[in-house]
């Protein structure tokens, strides 16, 4: 492999890792920080993709700002959806066994999948890349690199910084982390943990939807797309260490690198390398790479 190709592969690994972080960011918040096992995370990602498919034609009329407006609209809708979902299905589960959350969110997966089938049908759809982000950057004489992917990577970094800043550096983040660790104590201190958790859950859903909307133009929109991202998101959060945003970020990049170079150098074992990575990490550091911030 020559230098040029190697560098491009590094770029591929970086870009994929950042995309993974973006897709896993919602789960990082809900599962990593709040400790809620949300199997429906993949479904929210799918909802985001289908939302992009549904909203894109309307917002495409407005060039430039139309795309950003669509993302904002999607996030707004997702916040409302997440708020309602937490109130209806999750709020009473905090006092119960975690396995009840597992079963509940599993039920939600089935419901979302079927609603999607009823509302949007079973065909494969595409979402057009907005004009100002279409086009490619030439990487030497080797190949082109789509501008849109660089854009997504940029958004990922922003999300990572924002998430870290809020969770690790603000009072709000501190309250959430404290609430996840010990609900009764935090309530006794006068903080409305219920609303706090509801807001955080909604934010997690919104992040998943945002990721779905952003990824839709590159990954296309089709039944079952949520299932495929679910496991890899859990892997990323766990490798990084539950409760650590930095950890999830590092883990995403690590998984991106293993996946990318695995496909090139070990195609026979490419499917299993990520899991071997996770097993090795957990056997070396049984609680993930980073401790909770």
């Amino acid at each position, binding site marked *: 492999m020559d230098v040029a190709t190697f560098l491009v592969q590094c770029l591929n690994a970086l870009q994929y890792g950042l995309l993974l972080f973006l897709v896993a960011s919602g789960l990082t918040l809900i599962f990593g920080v709040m400790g809620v096992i949300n199997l429906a995370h993949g479904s929210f990602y799918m909802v985001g993709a289908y939302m992009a498919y549904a909203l894109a034609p309307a917002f495409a009329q407005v060039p430039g700002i139309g795309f950003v407006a669509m993302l904002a609209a999607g996030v707004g809708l997702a916040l409302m959806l997440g708020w309602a979902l937490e109130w209806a299905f999750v709020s009473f589960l905090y006092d119960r066994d*975690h396995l009840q959350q597992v*079963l*509940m969110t599993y*039920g939600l997966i089935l419901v979302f999948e*079927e609603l999607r*089938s*009823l509302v949007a049908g079973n065909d494969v759809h595409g979402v057009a890349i907005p004009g100002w982000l279409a086009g490619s950057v030439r990487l030497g004489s080797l190949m082109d690199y789509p501008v849109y992917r660089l854009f997504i990577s940029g958004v990922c970094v922003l999300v990572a910084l924002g998430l870290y800043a809020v969770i690790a550096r603000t009072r709000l983040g501190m309250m959430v982390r404290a609430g996840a660790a010990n609900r009764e104590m935090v309530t006794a201190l006068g903080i409305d943990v219920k609303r706090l958790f509801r807001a955080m859950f909604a934010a997690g859903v919104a992040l998943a939807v945002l990721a779905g909307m952003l990824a839709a133009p590159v990954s296309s929109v089709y039944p079952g797309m949520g299932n495929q991202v679910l496991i890899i998101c859990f892997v990323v959060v766990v490798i990084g260490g*539950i409760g650590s945003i930095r950890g999830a970020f590092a883990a995403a990049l690590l998984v991106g690198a293993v996946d990318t170079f695995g496909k090139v150098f070990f195609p026979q074992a490419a*499917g299993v390398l990520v899991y071997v990575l996770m097993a090795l990490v957990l056997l070396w550091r049984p609680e993930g790479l980073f401790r*909770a911030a």
Partner: protein
Amino acid sequence: MRAPGARAIVLAAAVVALALVPFAGGKFAVDFVTKMMVSSIFALSLELLVGQVGLACFGQAAFFGVGAYACVLLTPKDAAASVWWLGPASVGAAALYAAVMGSLSIRTRGVYFIMVTLAFSQVAYYVAHDTPMAGGSDGIYLGFVPSAAIAGLALVDLSKARPYYYVVLAALVLAFGFLAVLLRSRFGRALAGIRANEQRMRAAGFSTYPYKLAAFVISGALAGLAGFLFAVKDGVVNPELMGWHVSGTVLMMIILGGIGSLHGAVVGAFAFSLLEELFKSEALFGGFATHWHLGVGLAIILCVALLPRGLTGGWTREGKSLGSADERR
């Protein structure tokens, strides 16, 4: 608390009811209930780990799949194997994988344990899916149904539905009985102690690692037995048997049935299968039956909302089982 005598009567009645199915029902009933019984054995294997030891394993499908694949791969190409060595060999293969998986995973706790077990089962899945040894993604056929003959004397024909039904029923009763005795023994009490408070056990000088590993191996062996019975019945195995969906489904079964009791696992296995059948029924839902996932999903959500302890009211452990403040340390 129910009198032990009453409980024994209920269990006996259940076994009798199951024994009568081939007489009361048609070919399909025999088929379907055989499958539910195999699922019950599978569910029991997971209940041992989750309910009795407190280890939420998300890789149970690996043991099931190893048992099934061992049955198919060890059967010679030209003749039927004797079930008397093929069965134990398949179960042994699953137990071996469980020993390997367990010895490495038990070092982790809570959610991390779940993910490590998932990782190991994914390794098994990819070996089955991607290596030529295991026949590839379309699966492989069982060449011959194993024979149950001893010294030339044919005891029972495992390829016939009715005799096989009773073989599986016997296996279920034996598995249930074995676990019931095991859990009442000193070993079982040690497991209960580990579930309740492992640190206290360790502080009292008890070495918990060998007990957890032993439980893992027994659980793997039982799951392998279920896989073996599945392979003999279906005659075809596929890598999807080791997929995380299967691990997830069996976990859903025992949560639905109620964690903490053996009969909860069996009830959960039956209930989950029947629930799917209910919503798939064209007789009840007509054309909408193709959207049966919606019904099952809603039913599950309702169950969680209204029955916090599953269908049989199994106990739930106090506080959170995974990722709580204590576990994170």
